[in-house]
């Protein structure tokens, strides 16, 4: 079935919306009735057909509009895309990984022909048809990471591995949950995770770092993370807090169903072959409470999770102000029944 791309916005009139199919394929992050930080890593293996996990790099109905929103952000703030000079091999690794995966998973949308170092890339949804020399950045309109991540949904970080830790040395970050690449660039793993509450005391980051440094080529892994966003806005960056922060005060009992969105991040981790760096795509999926309410299991489970979540986590994720309104909205869906484990809609 051919994919139909929405023409929608993530700002101003917020015309973003999910189709019923898009709701059912949502990577719902709550596998049980409570939430606590965990490493929750699993092998990034292909999931059920139609799910967000079917392909290693997912493309969905929001692709074209998300890429348009990214271009707007970059035009206003070019520092959302940065790469330190020693990351050029990793940039080419990233371009190769995204092109080969997309062409393999979506042959109707993307084509890659390789003749030695001469590559021919066709991106049908975005109307791109370029021939370039792999390894020669002068043959592309942007540096390789920027070129390919202007054509790939989600944020991307490339972390270098040296001195027994990981370094945030390159990235394309335009749809982030309130963190800044321009601030974090050049920091190591412990530095950029310093603001996260509780997880340090739980020893999460020591174990996560050890795990990530051992991710091997050909064996990517993934985990889910989540937060809440008012309005379907992709660019919730600290740089633009003045634009989206006040939105939190606009939520009422009447409009919360369409205003408040669960924002799930499907994070995957890939060892890059030439550079030995790690590619870290952070793919975000937005869904309104109204849409969640169409799946009874999800609405019920989310009520239980938001009831029991520690205050410090609600505060860090930025939804403590609207937590009670969300609970009031979700309460009617929680009839006390037992829910199956896992995030499937049933």
């Amino acid at each position, binding site marked *: 079935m051919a994919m139909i791309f929405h023409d929608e916005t993530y700002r101003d009139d917020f015309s973003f919306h999910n189709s019923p199919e898009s709701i059912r394929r949502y990577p719902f992050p709550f596998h049980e009735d409570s939430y606590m930080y965990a490493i929750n890593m699993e092998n990034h293996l292909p999931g059920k057909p139609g799910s967000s996990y079917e392909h290693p790099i997912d493309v969905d109905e929001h692709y074209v509009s998300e890429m348009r929103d990214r271009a707007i952000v970059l035009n206003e703030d070019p520092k959302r895309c940065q790469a330190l000079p020693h990351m050029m091999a990793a940039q080419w690794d990233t371009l190769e990984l995204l092109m080969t995966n997309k062409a393999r998973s979506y042959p109707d949308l993307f084509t890659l022909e390789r003749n030695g170092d001469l590559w021919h890339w066709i991106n049908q949804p975005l109307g791109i048809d370029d021939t370039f020399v792999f390894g020669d950045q002068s043959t592309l309109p942007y540096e390789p990471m920027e070129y390919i991540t202007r054509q790939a949904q989600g944020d991307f970080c490339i972390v*270098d591995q*040296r001195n027994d830790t990981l370094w945030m*040395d390159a990235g394309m970050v335009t749809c982030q949950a309130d963190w800044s690449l321009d601030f974090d660039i050049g920091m190591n793993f412990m530095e950029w995770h310093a603001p996260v509450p509780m997880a340090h005391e739980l020893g999460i980051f020591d174990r996560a770092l050890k795990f990530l440094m051992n991710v091997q*080529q050909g*064996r990517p892994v993934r985990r889910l993370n989540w937060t809440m966003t008012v309005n379907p806005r992709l660019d919730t960056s600290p740089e633009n807090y003045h634009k989206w922060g006040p939105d939190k005060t606009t939520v009422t009992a009447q409009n919360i169903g369409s205003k408040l969105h669960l924002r799930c991040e499907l994070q995957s981790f890939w060892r890059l072959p030439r550079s030995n*760096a790690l590619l870290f795509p952070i793919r975000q999926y937005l869904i309104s409470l109204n849409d969640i309410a169409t799946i009874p299991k999800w609405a019920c489970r989310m009520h239980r999770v938001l009831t029991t979540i520690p205050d410090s986590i609600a505060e860090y994720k930025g939804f403590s102000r609207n937590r009670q309104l969300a609970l009031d909205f979700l309460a009617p869906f929680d009839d006390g029944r037992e829910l199956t484990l896992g995030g499937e809609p049933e």
Partner: protein
Amino acid sequence: MIHPEIIVRVTDIAVVAESIKQFTFERVDGGSMPVFAPGAHIVVSMDDQGKLRRNPYSLMSSPSDSTSYQISVLRVVESRGGSAFMHEHVDVGDTMTISHPIDLFPLHATAKRHVLIAGGIGITPFLPMMEVLNESGQVFELHYSMRSRRRGAFLSELERRYGSRVSAEVDDEGGRLDTRKLLIDQPLGTHIYVCAPLPMIDLVFGVARELGWAEENLHREVFLAPPAGTPFYTNLAKSGTTVYVAEHQSLLESIEAAGIDVPYLCRGGACGQCETTVIDFDGQLMHHDIFLTDDENVSGTKIMPCVSRFVGASLTVEL
């Protein structure tokens, strides 16, 4: 499956120095080999008359050549069987399985200068490293120690390609690497990489530490061969079974032979991936790895099953 593997055919075997053979592998399915970063190794699985052997070997071919991989194997005199098997039982046309590339010896991306120190067969990971450093215009030098020129694989080729950036220290010509002289004048931002037998690594690192080098600037690759020893039994608590570790078998191999998957990367006591919790023991843990700290060794709570052994009445681990 923890370790996805690639089925390859041996397409060439060449004697490249005394006791050193070079093997070329191509994929049986005709596909491309995965691109790899210089310094990476593969684990080669060998079917030695029904006994599974897995040995790590550094990739020495060009990282830009995706048609084949090459490794070189030194025939170890007191071989446990791996290098002897490769030398005596592997022929052109044979099918073998190898792992994806694993890089535990990467180049340091922000180094200003790279000093490469090879001892004998330890030359292999430096071949792709020098190619990449040379192509990207980075500053490097190689110091290659060998017993004799007959055993100095690839020396003349490297001298031809890289000229004065290569120097050879040949034992039987009275040559010897003067580590202190080499290290004392290196500018800040220099990183050293040593791939050699353990005593040579210890020597170089010892001198570097004495001279005040930062640990972050010292890199080493070593694959320790699992030593032979008295056979012993090990109880696997989670699996609810007991394995027998023969004289020339490692604990890791005996666990794998029982059909239990253990995560591993280097199989040589260096990387820490197969670290296993010791629940209980009556006897002595024989630690042969270079990963656990002295304190951890004394505590008796961890063991690296790839190289370490046990002597005594009973050992129970959490697997």
